[in-house]
């Protein structure tokens, strides 16, 4: 009886491990609609943090889900699966570039340049401008529109 219980326990644990492994192996990136932002910040403030101390800002933001609010400076549709919302001030070259989640492209229909939005996405890093011609950018991907305001 005892032996049987042990066998059942082993079988149960093995099954659990296999199921967990299978799910983990096939896991896809989560839709950020269902993920809470770790930080909420304005485009200006986060740009300043990165410009001031990239290393420190990377430690805080890199790879994290962040909600960034700002004015839409441009909407760049690069191909049918990819659109980038550029948040930032007209007068500055620097910006926060938000690559939209390809499953949420329909939000583009209701977005216009100049509008204020809050975008939730993952901070993928800071591209400091070395040429002096392009402006430095914070990049985000898998972005969704959190709210229009």
């Amino acid at each position, binding site marked *: 009886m005892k032996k049987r219980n042990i066998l059942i326990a082993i079988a149960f644990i093995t099954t659990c491990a296999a199921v967990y492994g299978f799910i*983990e*192996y*096939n*896991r*896809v*990136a*989560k839709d950020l609609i269902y993920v809470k932002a770790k930080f909420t910040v304005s485009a200006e403030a986060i740009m300043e943090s990165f410009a001031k101390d990239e290393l420190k800002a*990377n430690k805080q933001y*890199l*790879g994290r889900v962040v909600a960034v609010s700002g004015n839409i400076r441009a909407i*760049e549709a*690069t191909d049918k699966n*990819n659109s*980038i919302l550029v948040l930032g001030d007209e007068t500055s070259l620097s910006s926060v*570039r938000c*690559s939209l989640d390809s499953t949420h492209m329909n939000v583009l229909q209701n977005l216009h340049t100049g509008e204020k939005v809050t975008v939730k996405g*993952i*901070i*993928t*890093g*800071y*591209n400091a401008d070395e*040429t002096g*011609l*392009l402006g430095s*950018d914070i*990049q985000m*991907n*898998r972005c969704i529109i959190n709210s229009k305001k």
Partner: protein
Amino acid sequence: MKKVLFTAALFLATVALQAQEKYFTKSGNIKFFSKAPLENIEAVNRSVTCVLDTKTGDIQFAVLMKGFEFVKALMQDHFNENYVESDKFPKGEFKGQIENISSLNITQDGAYPVNVAGQLTMHGITKDVKADGKIIVQNGKVSASSDFAILLSDYDIKIPSLVENNISKTININVNCALETLNK
């Protein structure tokens, strides 16, 4: 009066020509692909910065490693944490030159084969790289593309021994950037 107009026209023409020497994008594509017995590894980054100077032939690319998107999240986690260590080395860069830039005529439509040589930096290591590419001019629009392969060991990217036979030691990289004129 005519002379003034001519000088003004010449000046404007020169400015216009100068303005068209530099091209750039911030939304270029880099894909990488590696075929392996167990499964293929594939990822794409759609936020590549590229600057091309058609006069000097200087060409630069910058890419943020965390911006590579995989279908499988676990693969993406492993890529960032174990392979390229993107917390420590967030950026990849290429700085180089198109060696045969003189063969490129930016005012004429066509596909121009180019040879690029320069330094590729990633995972904190810089190596000389040579690659063949193509500059395409179509209706005044310029795009740059290239396919090349790198060895993971060149960049000190270690493959855990457990999966050594399941991961290819070379990675094929495809670069594709539609460029715009850069107005200073």
